[in-house]
């Protein structure tokens, strides 16, 4: 009955099997489709095809971090441990995509600008986001008590989420004072279609990944509860 009683939970509802198959089949289709249909770009040649992995990876990174933010706020509000587990799963998946985004960005930047890294607002705030993910996940690994871990990591997640747009803003300012920003070009429709498909495919994949990670975390927690209940013969006194 009490709010904390919600922290007593059993096994999770598993992610439907079809979702995983759908996510991977759709992803394969989107990748093949966009590679086949897009002609070489007048300016960038085949390099343009990097867009179909780089942009969606960045997109789901920020999406995953949004989930961390919302789940963290919900956890502090309702003290529901499931929200904490969701935030953790989302951060794990998000940090991997964030690292992927950075590597893909470098593989785009090197042939385009001639450098692996440029200190522009987008790159820098993505890097900061990655560092915040790393801090968040190591905080979780350094704190054993679940109550404490939940509240601390929620606070870190929320402050980190506040920080990312602020970093973007300040770096933007810093850059415009010293160097002219490269202006983004409009995207031709034949590229747009492939990009949209891949955005959808990556989103679906990420949802599935987070769901499965969350499922694993729920099983682990439920196993702890069950083991304890078995050892002591039920807990409700």
């Amino acid at each position, binding site marked *: 009955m009490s709010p904390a009683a919600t922290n007593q939970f059993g096994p999770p509802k598993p992610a439907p099997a079809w979702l995983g198959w759908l996510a991977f089949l759709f992803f394969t289709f989107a990748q093949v489709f966009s590679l086949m249909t897009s002609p070489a770009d007048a300016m960038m040649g085949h390099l343009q095809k990097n867009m179909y992995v780089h942009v969606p990876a960045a997109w789901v990174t920020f999406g995953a971090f949004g989930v961390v933010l919302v789940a963290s706020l919900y956890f502090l509000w309702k003290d529901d441990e499931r929200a904490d587990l969701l935030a953790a799963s989302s951060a794990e998946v998000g940090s991997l995509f964030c690292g992927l985004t950075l590597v893909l960005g470098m593989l785009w930047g090197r042939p385009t600008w001639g450098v692996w890294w440029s200190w522009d607002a987008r790159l820098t705030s993505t890097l900061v986001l990655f560092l915040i993910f790393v801090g968040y996940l*190591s905080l979780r690994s350094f704190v054993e008590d679940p109550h404490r871990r939940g509240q*601390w990591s929620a606070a870190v997640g929320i402050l980190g989420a506040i920080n990312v747009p602020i970093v973007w803003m300040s770096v933007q*300012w810093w850059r415009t004072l010293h160097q002219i920003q490269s202006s983004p070009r409009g995207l031709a429709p034949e590229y747009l279609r492939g990009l949209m498909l891949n955005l959808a495919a990556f989103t679906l994949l990420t949802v599935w990944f987070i769901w499965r990670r969350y499922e694993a975390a729920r099983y682990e927690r439920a196993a702890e509860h069950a083991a304890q209940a078995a050892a002591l013969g039920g807990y409700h006194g």
Partner: protein
Amino acid sequence: MAFRDDVRRIRAIVWKDLTTERRSKAGFNSVASLGVTILVLFGLALGPDGPALHDAAAGALWLAILFAGVLAFNRSYQVELDGGALEALLLYPGARWAIFAGKLIANLIFVTLMLVIVVAVGIVLFSVDVPASWPQIVLIMMLGVLGIVSLGTFYAAMSSRSRAREVLLPLLLYPMLIPVLLAAMSATKALLFGDVMNEAGAWMQMLVIFDVIFLVATFLAFEYVIEV
């Protein structure tokens, strides 16, 4: 009534933190010496070349303050952890934010004193000509220190009570401080070079906005990290 009690509590915490810090002498001296040492190392790294040193002075100063300040933040909770004083502190009635405010003000005074020493040494080591707009530089330093200390005091409340606190605090804190440091460094640098592009004012505005945002956020979130 209750508010006046909280103000009294804040004063008591500030007094207590500064008194214990003053009596354990080693604390301030070693942190300030570390700040100076970092400046010397920057000087060596950036070479004996006069103009290069002058160029890098603003950045080196802020980084020295940041690196030495991090030690101060963990220290300010170490006092509470010896002998279980934090437990007693949390048992007193009154608002949780009062504890944060007290620690924040004490750290602010501590870091400001350290900053005075580091800046004095920095002016000599990096052959900085103090510009006519020095009052503005002082204001920017206060704003920058406020940002560093508010986030530092907040994150140290967690890191000081976890395993691996030496690693965890910088890992969590430095990425969060990027906007504040960037604004503070840029404004200081601009003013040192006569603010030819008129950018110092804009940086100062940003610094004020960042300080307000982070102060509000840390005050609101402190209750969640200190209890448990």
